[in-house]
């Protein structure tokens, strides 16, 4: 028999009693693991099962809207046409609401659908086209699409995960983007290594900083409106981001001081109870607490500015949704007669007359200062 230690042996290298092991940093997609949560229906059920009856509005988003003067969520004119070019991604982050990853190469928008998007953009008059994914740059039509949009005079936003810019076939992208005035909205979970690598995998922070240096060298992040570099942060855990403006100030200061990189603006997004973040909430026993936090943080002042009001979101297979979140939950936009919209043949007038499809996950967008693709809604 070995010695019985008199004192517990936990120390810096040994997990202490009762402390859960750190959750895995990057994960494989829910789909590739055959997880039940890969199904959108299961995700919706999981969130709706949470008992929120004692919470404001009894946890019903429809009721929260109604009691704040919105019988239905009417869209405003379309300003932003968002295209999800596919679920394929070079990364596979812990919190991804898309369940994106390297294994999802079969869900990528084909050239014919890309063409149909261009025709649709011409018809609906959006001034901005927002490209997302997955890693949108991995779509073989990506560069053709950006060029077609730029020649139409559209403002193009690329939602970039930074690390893709270090891969061989994308090394030239910073210069390429700069020539075309593409706005870059890049996700960086945190301004320090630890919380970035927790979400995105070890080494991600270093790579992201290298990518930011490349972007700075191409003229991005230096106050030039034609080369705007926006960073997007979202919490590495079950809490809401606080003051976006104060964080921006501190990030600018610390990223420049510690790493010599600059950027133009910081957006703080809330995590949505969808897909892999939902899985994390469930696994760590945080789901109820997080949903309660979202509901008690409901802020009616954010409703008018919700992105689903001025944005439409097209999926890789050409269906039209009110937003990327509804897209991942398989909740397509519906006309008053119950039919869906497809990028090939939709009627902008009928689309404009639809109410936005909402659900409990929407509390993620209205919590605190609000959260949309444009960051906090209320400053």
């Amino acid at each position, binding site marked *: 028999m070995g010695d019985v230690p008199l004192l517990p042996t936990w120390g810096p290298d040994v997990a202490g009693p009762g402390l859960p092991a750190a959750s895995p940093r990057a994960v494989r997609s829910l789909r590739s693991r055959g997880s039940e949560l890969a199904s959108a229906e299961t995700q919706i059920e999981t969130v709706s099962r949470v008992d929120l009856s004692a919470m404001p509005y009894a946890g019903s988003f429809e009721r929260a809207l109604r009691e704040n003067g919105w019988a239905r969520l009417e869209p405003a004119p379309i300003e932003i046409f968002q295209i999800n070019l596919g679920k394929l991604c070079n990364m596979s982050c812990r919190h991804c609401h898309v369940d994106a990853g390297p294994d999802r190469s079969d869900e990528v928008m084909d050239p014919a659908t890309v063409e149909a998007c261009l025709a649709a953009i011409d018809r609906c008059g959006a001034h901005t086209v927002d490209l997302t994914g997955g890693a949108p740059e991995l779509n073989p039509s990506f560069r053709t699409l950006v060029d077609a949009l730029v020649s139409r005079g559209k403002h193009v936003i690329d939602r970039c995960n930074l690390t893709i810019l270090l891969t061989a076939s994308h090394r030239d992208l910073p210069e390429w983007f700069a020539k075309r005035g593409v706005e870059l909205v890049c996700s960086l979970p*945190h301004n320090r290594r*630890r919380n970035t690598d927790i979400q995105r995998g070890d080494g991600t922070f270093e790579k992201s900083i290298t990518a930011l240096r490349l972007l700075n060298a191409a003229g991005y992040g230096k106050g030039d409106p034609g080369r705007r570099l926006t960073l997007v942060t979202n*919490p590495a*855990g079950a*809490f809401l*981001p*606080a*003051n976006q403006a104060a*964080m921006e100030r501190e990030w600018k200061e610390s990223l420049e001081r510690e790493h010599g990189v600059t950027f133009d603006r910081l957006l703080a997004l809330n995590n949505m109870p969808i897909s892999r973040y939902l899985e994390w909430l469930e696994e760590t026993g945080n789901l109820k607490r997080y949903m309660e936090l979202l509901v008690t943080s409901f802020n009616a002042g954010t409703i008018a500015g919700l992105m689903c009001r001025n944005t439409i979101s097209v999926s890789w297979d050409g269906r039209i949704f009110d937003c990327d979140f509804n897209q991942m939950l398989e909740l397509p936009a519906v006309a008053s007669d119950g039919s869906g919209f497809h990028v090939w043949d939709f009627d902008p007038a009928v689309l404009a007359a639809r109410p936005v499809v909402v659900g409990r996950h929407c509390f993620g967008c209205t919590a605190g200062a609000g959260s949309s693709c444009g960051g906090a809604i209320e400053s």
Partner: protein
Amino acid sequence: MDTYYKPEHLSHFASIAEGNKALAEKFFSYYGAVFADGALSVREKALIALAVAHTVQCPYCIDAYSQECLKNGSDLEQMTEALHVAVAIRGGASLVHGVQMLEHVKKSSM
């Protein structure tokens, strides 16, 4: 009372106004002003609060300011460093009194 500390006391903090509304209002408005963004950022103030919370060993404050630190963009490393500042001052405060001890010893020993 079956236990002294209850987590729900934190969210019921405002009920302390029951015995004296005017003083509670003064306290809470002062408290709010202290933590507003100022010459120090909200994040820095939350780190100081976290360190003090551990010094006064208040579980309510530890709970509240762990969350507040994360929300305002601090990470575990920064929070742990803040804590060690409190620990160092606490330890140092004991140890520096050792100089009094030393004087006593020197004075009363051969």
